[in-house]
């Protein structure tokens, strides 16, 4: 397989964990809450998902357990930042550390065990296209579902009453409350949704993308997902684009090694991180655009 085919075949799957987590965080941030604990929630989802999928040989149950774990830990976050109106940066870090710790605590007994991944499905018609068809359009079901979720979220956030409520709560919580919306309840639901998505994202990484358990396997993908939300300037479509870019980048390490290019693997491993910093700078330096898109109440506790 040549390098182009390899990247076409792999980038969607590589992008999926980051994309799932970033889409969840998009909803959370649109409601005005910043959850920095994504990395830890993904780690928790990865270990719970692996343990259940390993025990039951059923991926769906693994994903359900991971989503449940993600919801549970992000509800703790919700209590701290909504109930107690605490600093969201500090609370996010606390939840991140807690999630990372729980993940390795639970996963300890499963170190380096493996399970089977999911079969690839070829999309009818599209997979018959020349060149890109057999590679790009042959993916496991979660990849396709994730893209569907992205479309659904775009539609829901921009063209539905629910989306309008979430955005109102994020842009101006006091006005939203004045016209009768329950700000804290909306935010709590958004946080729970974000937690479920991050949990599923982790489980995809540990049970489908690389179906084995290794402590610390999330390896910064939760942080990249957080950066993706900023790159995408809080729009689902641009977040998908960013995730695909990072999916392709993360495969670069393998392709250049296969091509026999003599670059130390550590340099290649840094590429996604360096690109994250540069992209962040490129997008954020347009201050006018950032001001237009940034959620007005992001990170600020709400109290009457």
């Amino acid at each position, binding site marked *: 397989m040549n390098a182009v085919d390899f990247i076409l075949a792999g980038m969607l799957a590589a992008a999926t964990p980051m994309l799932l987590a970033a889409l969840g965080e998009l909803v959370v941030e649109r409601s005005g809450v910043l959850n*920095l604990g994504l990395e*830890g929630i993904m780690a928790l989802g990865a270990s719970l998902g692996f343990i259940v999928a390993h025990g039951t040989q059923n991926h769906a149950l693994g994903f359900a357990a991971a989503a449940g774990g993600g919801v549970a830990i992000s509800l*703790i976050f919700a*209590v*701290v930042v909504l*109930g*107690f*109106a*605490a*600093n969201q*940066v*500090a*609370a996010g*870090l*606390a*939840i*991140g*550390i*807690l*999630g*990372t*710790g*729980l*993940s*390795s*605590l639970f996963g*300890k007994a499963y170190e380096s065990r493996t399970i089977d991944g999911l079969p690839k499905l070829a999309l009818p018609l599209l997979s018959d296209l020349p060149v890109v068809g057999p590679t790009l359009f042959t993916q496991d079901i979660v990849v396709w579902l994730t893209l569907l979720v992205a479309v659904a979220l775009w539609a829901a956030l921009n063209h539905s009453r629910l989306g309008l409520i979430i955005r109102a709560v994020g842009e101006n919580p006091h006005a939203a409350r004045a016209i009768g919306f329950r700000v804290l309840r909306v935010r709590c639901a958004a946080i729970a949704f974000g937690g479920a998505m991050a949990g599923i994202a982790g489980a995809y990484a540990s049970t489908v993308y690389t179906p084995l358990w290794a402590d610390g396997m999330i390896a*910064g993908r939760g*942080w990249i997902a*957080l*950066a993706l939300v*900023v790159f995408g300037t809080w729009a689902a479509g641009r977040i998908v684009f960013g995730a695909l870019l990072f999916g392709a980048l993360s495969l670069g390490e393998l392709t250049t090694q296969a091509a026999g290019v003599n670059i*130390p693997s*550590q*340099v290649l*491993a*840094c590429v996604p*991180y*360096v690109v*994250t*910093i540069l992209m*962040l*700078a*490129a997008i*954020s*330096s347009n*201050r006018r655009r*950032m001001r237009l898109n940034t959620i007005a109440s992001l990170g600020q506790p709400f*109290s*009457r």
Partner: protein
Amino acid sequence: MRLALIRRDRASRRAMVLAPVLAFGLSILASLALFAVLGKSPGLALYALLLEPFLTWYNFSEVLLKMAPLLLIAQGLAIGFRANVFNIGAEGQLVMGAIGASAFPVFFPEATSGLMLPAMLLTGAASGMVWAGIAALFRTRFNANEILVTLMLTLISVQVLNYLLLGPWKDPKGFNFPQSVRFPDAALLPILLPGTRVTIALLFALAASGLAHVLMRHRFSGFQLLVAGLAPRAASYAGFSARRAIWVSLLLGGLAAGLAGAAEVAGPLGQLQRSVSTGYGYSAIIVAYLGGLNPIGIVVSAFVMAAISIGGDNAMVTADLPVAAVWVFQGLLLTFYLCGLTFIRHRVVLERAKPRARP
């Protein structure tokens, strides 16, 4: 009827003291319950985590050894946190500090010069500053979020460490282990307490605490930083700049973490190895918050966190608990503390249904 938070007119001193104490108690209870569920003995875990660090002089000295980097880094970070500049990449600045300091003994392994150690500490501190300075540059020049940039820089620093230890800086006589040569005596910090591994790095940390206290309490510059972080617009009217607050916060945070990294390789490790990155930079974030971002409070919280981390090492042996147990405990501690913090500025009241306005 429902519960509601009402803002207090002034901060409650009682809540300020009670919040960390209660958070500590609740974290203990929650972790013991969790360990019991996982089939570990809660009694043994409690003994290992809370008592063992204080039962022998050697264990206690190890607590002081761990306290030094935690205290130093946390004091540096707290300056930024007070000004709402969130440097969460102290771990990376520590790694770069360790690398910078190690350059001297790696290139001059036979040196006996008395200049070696000062040069290492200076380079270590400068490396940490440069690493944090990148984030300050990106924040001030390109408006890039410092949380994400410092975190990405940490992930990069670990790769730099791996590259050096697996390649150019690997000890040729080290049986292929990923570690540098062992440092000569001239590259090692003097021991502070004879018979232990505690070096004079503890004095650096205590001196930094004193400096931070003076800076915050008695100097106008501390006040400027605080205002610039909390109310950038007000600060700019008064003529102090948010830009400067970002630079000062990140550079001082990087300096402290870099120095801590240098003191690790020149202290307990005695060489550059992967285990220089064991999470001090992350734990220090918790230390800074638990200490109420107050220089004196941070001394207490650094001691407590160091004790727990030694307790965690003991618990691996005594109670068969993995290292991750300490992370769980730290996460719970910060979570509970943040909840408790609310009561410093708010009080809880039972609110009846809203009374109708009388005509």
